């Protein structure tokens, strides 16, 4: 049995990996569940992480949030995922609380925070974050980020009467 189990687990992971690679999140979720339901995979944080992301990719944010909050193994690991689910479920204040509990947030969390602040109408704070994000990030979403910054500038001048320099 001891020799059999790791083989079996690797096969299960192979399956999960395959479905992730072809973006078949429904099947990937099933594969992740299979791992979590085994004795040795019960507390496997990678499988749980995959499960949460699968649900998020399928827009099952309520389910994903419930899963993350109910699993002590990943609660601290998947803070970004948790906050994002809250953001999408319009629990925007909660999302901000979740992000603010992190002592040194990474760029993903800061980008989410900028979006959360925008949604909450805290445009100045959002703008300050974006100014930093645009410097720090180098990925393929720079145009989208610039669009968001423009939206923050527009909101500042339209709703707060604050004129800003672009």
């Amino acid at each position, binding site marked *: 049995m001891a020799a059999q189990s790791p083989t079996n687990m690797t096969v299960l992971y192979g399956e999960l990996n395959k479905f992730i690679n072809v973006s078949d999140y429904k099947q990937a979720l099933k594969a992740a569940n299979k791992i979590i339901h085994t004795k040795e995979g019960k507390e496997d944080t990678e499988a749980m992480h*995959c499960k949460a992301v699968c649900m998020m990719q399928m827009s099952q944010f309520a389910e994903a949030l419930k899963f993350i909050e109910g699993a002590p193994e990943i609660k601290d690991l998947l803070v970004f995922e948790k906050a994002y689910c809250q953001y999408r479920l319009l629990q925007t204040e909660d999302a901000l609380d979740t992000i603010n509990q992190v002592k040194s947030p990474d760029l993903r969390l800061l980008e989410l925070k900028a979006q959360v602040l925008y949604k909450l109408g805290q445009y100045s704070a959002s703008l300050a974050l974006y100014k930093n994000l645009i410097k720090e990030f180098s990925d393929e979403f720079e145009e*989208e980020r610039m*669009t968001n910054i423009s939206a923050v500038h527009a909101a500042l001048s339209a709703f707060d009467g604050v004129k800003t320099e672009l």
Partner: protein
Amino acid sequence: YPPKFEPVPCKPLFFDVALNHATFPSLDKKLGKKENPQKAGLTGLISNWWGWGGKK
């Protein structure tokens, strides 16, 4: 009456860039970690592993 038309500001375009940060963890460790000791030790399993790995 009827009320006069008046311009209202449109909602600016705003992208959800953060969704792109919701990514899967790397499973390389899970796939490879268990592969190496097998290759080193159990000769009988090597062909199995290669057969399986080749399909990826």
